[in-house]
């Protein structure tokens, strides 16, 4: 008999074959990371009930089975390979296999050159991801599958990383999007992610087979793959067991099961994993800790007996909703803390009704709301004030520690912290791109291991050997935990280890401190995650300081909002505008989803309709609300530059035919140069259209590296568009060097900008037999350029060019580039002047030329103008300063502008710099620190916004509003 055991990341599968290769036994169950126990249980069962003393050959497979088989000297077969063996036997006609597991995703190309692709260090697009999303939507997997059938719309969700997806889904939930649409969108995202991330340019076609848990159980997911692949795949019988079957088929070595079992159980007890010291020495130390923290209490009053002005504060968070009722004596009269279950509106309605029931005479003097759902709640209930979260938390923290200099709030999936300098908020740290320092991660883990979060967290308090999981992305941590468990860590150790990781991520990944002194000594911690004693303890240990955790840690946002409304309404007559009891009773909430379509951003709008009011969410600017199209180029240089670039139209009927230029990366600045150069030579220059999501998806399958920056990824789509237009000659040169602006020691482009055309040439089969001119070109030595370019042109075109015409064209091209730069500088100056006349703040939105692309910047420039400030870019003010000595190697043209711009901003009272950083940009790891230090040296606030395929504009808004609030102070 042959036994195959597939020990995966979340489940364990087994198959036993008789001598005729027939399946006589199979099993599939979750192992909850109790790997050795489950293996022992399963093998014992197989030995006693199936094998019954006959000869047995055993082979192990699966990611979690690797270590165990090594140590116990059991035969092992790599799981993808096992799948292949099984498919070869059972479904020999298969061309391609798509297999999703708990934490892995694989595509196997069987025909036409066998190749295997599996996900690397990213767990996005896997079963664990879908689990996480179901938890977020607060539904079971079955429900999710059922709901997905009746979808109407597909939203764009990044499934590269659960973290990103969450920040896409949460605002949608808050805006009232339907769960059925979300469920289908999640499946579509997984399909897209798998195809894009793994196929990497290789077409998936022919007979496609779906394997693994998620694809077996979720019809909706299979449908999403079918849609994405434009085909119908099959999910065969035993689709869960292919790895186990493959292992069984390859079993050849006789195994004595009794010995194997003994070894396995021994293995479970080896206990080699990296651990750190326990959180508490003993119960006494814990008791002292609890005692110290129990003293920090907010004053409480009684709603029933209290008479006087009453204030309401609401914090509509990403996963929870909190409300506080405050008396004018500062005492909390009542409060709630609830999961928002995807829609906070009915919860607040019920709460208000309940309050009125208790106190029918209740009249609110003022009410304020903060948090993700601020606008929705404010509009739904007609509250007086909406404030940015940072202000709410600062207001609350001051009540507990008047001299507070650092506030850290760790919630479910968002983390905010900020320093306080001279009584104003300074230096905000938010986790736009990463939720690794947050609590929802702990929660998801607790659930995976079968615990409630409260119980799970407590387990860690007295763990003897907390697992050292380090800091970094939590999605990656799954496999680290897996490894630790494999090495014998207990649930207690893991719980403690995870708490440590949450804190370390928060400190070293999001805030990036090197020592506690950096953050200040008067620290208030808050947010739901700090209710967890283990997390609090780790934080104090790591910071080496005693901190204040108010007993209303989870309510601080709401408390702060209430206090704010009290302070703000102090000198105001009358009562809150909050809707009355009768209005509440007749309250209705209807949601419609639509696309704006008024500009290229094409925001997906959620229209919330309340009796007599409506609220539009999801918009970047005020146009869908006011229906007015202001002339944004007057005050927004990004809009102006884009318009200017679009004015470089093709000159028709070029004698040399058409030449295409993809609008990507450095073309956002060099278009005037190349457009003029080729037009002068007699080409009709066709540029690719503005980027959008569709364009990205169309080129996605040819991207070889999924961790390269989004602007680079978009270039694949631009090439596709040009080819679709029938352009056979495309010009996109490799450029190691950029124009030398004499602001740096050298004038390089970054490696990606410099050489990306090579990637397009090597990975886009569509470019085969086309004239794709991607030679190495230098425009940094104008004298040499015509000679060198002549050679390149004559190499690519039959009809020869002569040096004279190339020289003339080159001269015109340099002139055009110069003119363009002068023009935008002039416009920049005009915007600055206009802003100064109108007393507007000027925001220098600093990045790279390609951040002009609306698909890259996600309309952040518009968001800024809608908040009442003017927007200019770094290049126009960089020219106003000389080369700066900086503490880094300054040798990239674009990056040198950032340093110069920062120096200039530091001298202007009404200017502030906001740096746009593309996710995955390695060079910005260097520039961001330097720009920050230049600004902070001059007492300026540094604001950074990380952007990606998807950007959570909610978080961007918090940053910008906090910046403006801090500037006001």
């Amino acid at each position, binding site marked *: 008999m042959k036994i195959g055991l597939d020990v995966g990341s979340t489940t364990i599968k087994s198959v036993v074959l008789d001598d005729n290769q027939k399946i006589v036994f199979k099993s599939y169950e979750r192992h909850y990371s109790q790997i050795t126990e489950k293996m022992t249980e399963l093998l014992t069962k197989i030995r006693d009930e199936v094998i019954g003393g006959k000869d047995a050959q055993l082979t192990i497979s699966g990611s979690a089975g690797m270590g165990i088989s090594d140590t116990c000297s059991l035969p092992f077969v790599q799981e993808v390979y096992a799948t292949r063996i099984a498919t070869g036997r059972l479904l020999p006609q298969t061309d391609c296999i798509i297999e999703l597991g708990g934490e892995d995703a694989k595509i196997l190309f069987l025909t036409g050159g066998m190749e295997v692709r599996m996900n690397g260090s990213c767990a996005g697009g896997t079963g664990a991801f879908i689990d996480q999303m179901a938890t977020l939507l607060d539904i079971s997997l079955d429900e999710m599958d059922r709901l997905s059938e009746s979808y109407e719309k597909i939203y764009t969700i990044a499934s590269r990383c659960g973290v990103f997806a969450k920040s896409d889904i949460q605002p949608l939930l808050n805006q009232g999007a339907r769960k059925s649409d979300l469920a289908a969108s999640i499946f579509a995202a997984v399909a897209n992610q798998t195809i894009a991330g793994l196929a990497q340019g290789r077409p998936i076609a022919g007979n496609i087979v779906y394997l693994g848990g998620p694809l077996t159980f979720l019809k909706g997911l299979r449908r999403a793959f079918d849609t994405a692949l434009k085909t119908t795949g099959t999910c065969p019988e035993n689709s869960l067991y292919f790895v186990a079957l493959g292992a069984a088929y390859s079993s050849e070595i006789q195994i004595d099961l009794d010995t194997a079992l003994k070894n396995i159980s021994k293995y479970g007890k080896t206990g080699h994993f990296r651990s750190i010291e326990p959180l508490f020495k003993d119960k006494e130390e814990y008791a002292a800790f609890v005692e110290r923290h129990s003293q920090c209490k907010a004053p409480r009053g009684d709603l029933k007996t209290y008479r006087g002005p009453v204030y309401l504060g609401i914090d509509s968070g990403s996963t929870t909703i909190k409300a506080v009722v405050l008396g004018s004596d500062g005492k909390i009269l009542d409060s709630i803390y609830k999961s928002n279950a995807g829609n906070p509106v009915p919860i607040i309605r019920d709460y208000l009704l309940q309050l009125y029931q208790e106190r029918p005479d209740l009249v609110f003097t003022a009410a304020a709301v903060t948090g993700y759902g601020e606008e929705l709640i404010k509009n739904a209930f007609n509250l007086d004030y909406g404030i940015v979260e940072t202000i709410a938390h600062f207001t609350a923290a001051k009540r507990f520690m008047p001299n507070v200099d650092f506030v850290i709030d760790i919630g479910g999936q968002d983390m905010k912290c900020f320093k306080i300098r001279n009584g104003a908020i300074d230096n905000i740290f938010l986790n736009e791109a990463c939720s690794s320092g947050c609590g929802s991660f702990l929660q998801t883990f607790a659930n995976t291991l079968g615990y409630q979060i409260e119980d799970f967290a407590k387990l860690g308090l007295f763990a003897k050997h907390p697992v050292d999981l380090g800091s970094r992305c939590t999605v990656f941590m799954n496999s680290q935990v897996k490894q630790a468990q494999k090495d014998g860590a207990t649930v207690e150790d893991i719980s403690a280890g995870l708490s440590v990781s949450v804190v370390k991520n928060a400190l070293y990944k999001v805030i990036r401190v090197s020592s506690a002194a950096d953050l200040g000594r008067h620290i208030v911690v808050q947010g739901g995650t700090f209710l967890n004693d283990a997390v609090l303890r780790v934080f104090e240990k790591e910071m080496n300081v005693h901190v204040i955790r108010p007993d209303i840690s989870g309510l601080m946002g709401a408390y702060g909002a209430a206090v704010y409304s009290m302070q703000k309404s102090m000198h105001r007559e009358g009562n809150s505008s909050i809707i009355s009891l009768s209005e509440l009773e007749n309250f209705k909430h209807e949601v419609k989803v639509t696309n704006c379509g008024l500009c290229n951003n094409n925001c997906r709008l959620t229209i919330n309709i309340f009796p007599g009011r409506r609220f539009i969410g999801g918009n970047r600017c005020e146009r869908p609300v006011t229906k007015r199209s202001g002339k944004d180029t007057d005050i927004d240089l990004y809009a102006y530059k884009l318009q200017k670039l679009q004015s470089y139209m093709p000159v028709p009927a070029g004698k040399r035919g058409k030449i295409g230029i993809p609008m990507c990366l450095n073309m956002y600045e060099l278009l005037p140069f190349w457009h003029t150069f080729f037009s002068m030579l007699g080409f009709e220059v066709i540029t690719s259209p503005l980027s959008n999501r569709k364009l990205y998806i169309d080129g996605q399958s040819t991207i070889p590296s999924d961790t390269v920056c989004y602007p680079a990824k978009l270039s694949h789509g631009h090439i596709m568009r040009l080819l679709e237009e029938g352009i056979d000659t495309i010009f996109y040169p490799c450029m*190691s060097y950029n124009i030398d602006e004499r602001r740096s020691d050298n004038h390089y482009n*970054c490696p990606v900008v410099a*050489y990306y055309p090579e990637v397009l040439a090597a990975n886009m089969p569509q470019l085969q037999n086309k004239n794709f001119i991607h030679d190495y070109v230098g425009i940094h030595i104008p004298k040499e350029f015509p000679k060198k370019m002549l050679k390149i042109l004559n190499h690519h075109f039959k009809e020869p060019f002569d040096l004279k015409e190339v020289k003339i064209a080159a001269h015109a091209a340099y002139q055009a580039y110069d003119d363009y730069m002068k023009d935008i500088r002039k416009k920049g100056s005009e915007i600055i002047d206009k802003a100064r006349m109108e007393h507007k703040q000027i925001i220098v939105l600093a990045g790279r030329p390609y951040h002009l692309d609306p698909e890259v910047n996600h309309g952040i420039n518009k968001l800024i103008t809608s908040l009442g400030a003017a927007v200019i870019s770094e290049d126009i003010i960089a020219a106003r300063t000389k080369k700066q000595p900086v503490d880094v190697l300054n040798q990239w043209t674009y990056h040198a502008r950032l340093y110069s711009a920062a120096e200039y901003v530091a001298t202007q009272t009404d200017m502030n710099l906001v740096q746009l950083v593309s996710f995955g940009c390695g060079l910005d790891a260097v520039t961001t620190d330097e720009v920050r230090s230049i600004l902070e040296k001059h007492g300026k606030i540094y604001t950074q916004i990380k952007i990606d395929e998807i950007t959570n504009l909610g978080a961007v808004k918090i940053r910008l509003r906090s910046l403006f609030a801090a500037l006001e102070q």
Partner: protein
Amino acid sequence: MAELVYDKNGRLLFTKEMKKEYTILIPMMLPVHFKLFEGVLRNAGYKIELLTNSGQAVVQEGLKYVHNDACYPALLVIGQFLDALHSGKYDLDHTALMMTQTGGGCRASNYIPLLRKAMHKAGMDQIPIISMNLVGLESNPGFKMNLGIIRRMMAGVVYGDTLMCLNNQTKPYEIKRGESTALLDHWIQNLNNQFAHGHGMNMGDLKKNLQQIMQDFAAVPIKKVSKVHVGIVGEIFVKYAAFANNNLEDFLAEQDCEVNLPGLMNFILFMLEHRPDDLKLYGGGPAASIASSVSKFLFRYVSKMQHAITEAFQPYPQFLAPTEFSHVHELVNGVIGYGAKMGEGWLLTGEMLELAESGFENIVCAQPFGCLPNHIVGKGMIRKVKQVNPKANIVPIDYDPSATKVNQENRIKLMLAVARENMNQS
């Protein structure tokens, strides 16, 4: 005690007095080569110590003091320095740090500034940092790369590449375990002795030594069994430094593989070709022409040394000689442009082609997570390499502080499973 002297930009200099008093710490990358370099620098009067500290403490120090999105090698090397300095083993007022700096358009040329920032953050501004480079970045009165040192170092590279290459081909098959390693250690000592007495550097000595080395390794009794041939390419630090790639070579050895790790020689030639190529591609003034001529001169000198290795291998067909630069150069033609210079540039693509051609078609392409040049010359070129050589079986592996060994090894095992199948079929 040496006075602290700064240049006009406020950079702390390594002075001549410091040369006498200070211990210079250098992070280990390639064990064979670096032990030879250590000897060279010691003989030149520097107190040198190679850092081999590794493990989680090093990573933690790195995470604490370096921007977490910076390259993994930067994080590791800086972590290694700080871990050493915090260990209490060194007198902080008599210690200097040395690091190589390539100075290209890759962000890796920023390691030195990142290190300086980290040292400042850690409150150790008094420690001088020496950039070892051949392009004239940051000079120091107390440390000069004079001709004598450069010649010895180059000889060190020749010997290092040869020894590493032979050891990789002998060790997996040796009958008496440890014999190959012992021979390797013997030669490192022997060569350092020669350097100390001013020998081992001229062409005559070089050829003689190489012959002897070949003879010695050929004499190690081996038993040839069929093993999976695996080549390693990648970002230079992750490719070579064992603690950066989770002991990749050891892992592959355990998996019963013979490993081929292309040496340093071609990287040096690749760097030397930079200026002449730039001149050819983009033109330039008289200064660029002179720089190019100097590079060309050095290029010829180093090429000659490389050719000595090839010659030494000729009488021993059982050993596969390191591929000469000119051949790798030729292989790349039509696959990627020679203008791709940043990081490992086209050479990385060339090494994949070279390995695939010489029977090491199973390749691990090791890179730090998010390495910019590798998006282009590594992952970006795999498809093209396979077009050229359909047998190529390449697995890209990302390294960073959070990537787990389990995951990496699982991916490598998959590559090996396919490799074994291919081996059995042929």
